[in-house]
């Protein structure tokens, strides 16, 4: 068991810098997921922690020890590779026991062997592979290979457990089951774990904290709720969620109390803006597809219930009748007018791909029964509390008054 500290960790291959100045503190027993698209440097960070890759700059501390110059063998880390990397010429028992035998030193050989056999048996039982101990890897199924790779990494009870996309070679069903088992395994063993993946589903379900990496840099470190509900910048906002957040940059046009994009394709109450934003400067705003709800028929007909029916009741202004024609259901909310281009029916819900009059696209995740037809004009609304604001130049999140209270409110 150990905590890990990364300080200014950098790696370049020649002039190509793949990891830049990564700082990270991993608590003892914590499950950290490095999340990023391929080529973002997440595997390189992992390999540097393992000692398989030399550090160009910065420090790696494991359990209070600077390990930059330690060889992999003395860092006491276990690692699971994407392709399992099982020794193909050894049996499952041989694979599990290889590390034990390698670390065995001369004394008490027979006792040591007996002990190893016990450890192999226990680990195999833990992972339910005790019935295939005499098999070679190529006789095993993908899931079993995965378990052997896990077993080989945990049998020595390493201080740190590193996993490099361990589930990506499994089929979808098995992947979900193994994901659950990994979570249970971690709860049982409480080994500090760093897990690399590009799959946000894995990240959101497994991680105590998620580290979003892009282009070798850390964009955000936080819990699943943090990165999802309060993305630190536009990259994180777009990367997380499936599909990612809708993002628009508003020029500073104000009409009355509202901030309006183009000819009203997007409109939101100025009161919701972060302090100091929107006055003379453009502003990026973001709304998650699942936070968008169908407002009403454009002529002002009855309200179609979106996935958040309760939300509309929060706004007493609805009944005031002082708003523009379709404002009865949209007052105090962020409003998007769009044409429906494509409908994707996904069983449990409906994905609407639309376009604003500005040509920008919008994706909304609506109730499977939502009354939407291809080609028609619809009005989508979202709570201002679910509307995110970013600096259009840096992409950084702008904090609003209403957002911090939202912690943990994600449905």
């Amino acid at each position, binding site marked *: 068991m150990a905590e890990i500290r990364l300080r200014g960790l950098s790696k370049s291959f020649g002039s190509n810098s793949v990891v830049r100045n990564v700082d990270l503190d991993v608590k003892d027993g914590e499950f950290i997921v490095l999340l990023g698209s391929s080529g973002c440097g997440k595997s390189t960070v992992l390999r540097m922690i393992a000692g398989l890759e030399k550090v160009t700059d910065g420090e790696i501390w494991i359990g209070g020890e600077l390990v930059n110059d330690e060889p992999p063998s003395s860092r006491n880390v276990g690692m699971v590779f994407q392709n399992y*990397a099982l020794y193909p*010429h050894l049996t499952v028992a041989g694979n599990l026991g290889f590390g034990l035998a390698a670390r065995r030193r001369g004394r008490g050989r027979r006792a040591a062997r007996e002990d190893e056999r016990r450890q192999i048996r226990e680990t195999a039982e833990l992972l339910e592979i005790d019935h295939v101990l005499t098999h070679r890897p190529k006789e095993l199924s993908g899931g079993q290979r995965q378990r052997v790779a896990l077993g080989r990494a945990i049998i020595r009870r390493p201080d740190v457990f590193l996993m490099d996309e361990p589930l990506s070679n499994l089929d979808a069903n098995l992947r979900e089951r193994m994901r659950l088992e990994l979570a249970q395994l971690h709860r049982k063993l409480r080994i500090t774990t760093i897990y690399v993946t590009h799959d946000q589903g894995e990240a959101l379900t497994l991680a105590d904290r998620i580290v979003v990496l892009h282009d070798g840099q850390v964009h955000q470190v936080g819990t699943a709720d943090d990165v999802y509900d309060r993305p630190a910048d536009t990259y994180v906002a777009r990367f997380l969620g499936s599909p990612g957040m809708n993002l628009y940059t508003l020029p500073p046009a104000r009409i009355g109390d509202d901030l309006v994009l183009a000819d009203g394709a997007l409109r939101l109450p100025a009161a919701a803006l972060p302090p100091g934003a929107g006055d003379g400067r453009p502003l990026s705003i973001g709304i998650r597809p699942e936070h968008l709800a169908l407002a009403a028929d454009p002529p002002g007909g009855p309200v179609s219930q979106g996935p958040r029916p309760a939300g509309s009741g929060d706004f007493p202004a609805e009944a005031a009748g002082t708003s523009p024609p379709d404002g009865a259901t949209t007052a105090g909310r962020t409003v998007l007018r769009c044409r429906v281009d494509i409908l994707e029916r996904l069983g449990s819900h409906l994905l609407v791909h639309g376009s604003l009059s500005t040509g920008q696209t919008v994706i909304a995740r609506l109730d499977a029964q939502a009354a939407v037809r291809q080609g028609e004009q619809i009005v989508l609304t979202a709570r201002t509390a679910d509307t995110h604001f970013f600096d259009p130049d840096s992409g950084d999140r702008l904090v609003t008054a209403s957002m911090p209270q939202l912690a943990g409110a994600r449905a």
Partner: protein
Amino acid sequence: MSGTISRARPLSVARGRERSADGRVPGRRRWPARLRRMEESLVAYGMLAPAITVFTVFFFIPAIFLAYISFFHWGILSSATTFVGLKNFRILFQQPLFFHSLAVTAYYTVVMIPATVVLALGIALVLREAVTARRGGIWRSAVFLPHVTPVVATSVIWVWIFNPQFGLANFVLTSLHLPALGWLGSTTWALPAVMIDSLWHSLGLYVIIFLAGLANVPRELIEVAQLDGASRRRIFRRIVLPLLSPTTFFVVILSTVSSWQAFSQIYTMTGGPHGGAGGPAFSTTTDALLIYQTAFSYDHFSLAAAMSMVLFLIILLLTLIQKWISNRLVFYR
């Protein structure tokens, strides 16, 4: 779509995979099945024809003819060909020189195989570890270059290297305060001298083969073993060597066969066309050399053919034994 794909694939694969339930390839122009098969066979044989021709003319026909004349009295200049049964073999087994040549060849092979494997693997490991990717090509070429040179030409140079008075070999030995050797003039050292020449000449090929084999050992396996705490030696012995065993086996077979057939370098280094090859005192008379001399110096073609048959059986037997051993030691992924 499947039609265009099946065209691009080998035809037999397309036939096996792309057929739908009614047994026809969907979307493909339907020739009568027999015609289509004939077309495929013709294409296949057409492609194989050059290789088959070369093999037939220079390999199969001579080999069969060789087996044929080993049972006859046959001379290249005499027109009388008479069947003599096993007489040639009987004569052969009464010749001490024949058994001596087998012993010389066995000695040569027994030294050459381990020397080849150890040196080639060693050089391959050094090349892979110590040489950067950018310089790698130059070093690989340098190691491979001797193999491209003509054996006869380089063997003449080795004769000079092993010259007892002016040769480089003795210069190196005396510089190291070791006694100078008679080399090609000595019954003890003539064969080792030939071995050194042969190793120099053949190692390049085996180094390249080992390099290819090493490149096939997945890097993650070595990394996992490092994380498992295995020492470099342990990783080499427990991971690299087993995974390399098909390559090693291949090298062993190749070097066994080429050792049993070693001829050019021995002929050139120990006498060449001026006579005396195989000396001194038959100490370098391998069976290949004896076969050559029996046939071309003494005009006993049938006897030489019989020797070749015995040599063939020996190599066949050795290969079978190696194959049998390999089933236990070689791990195929």
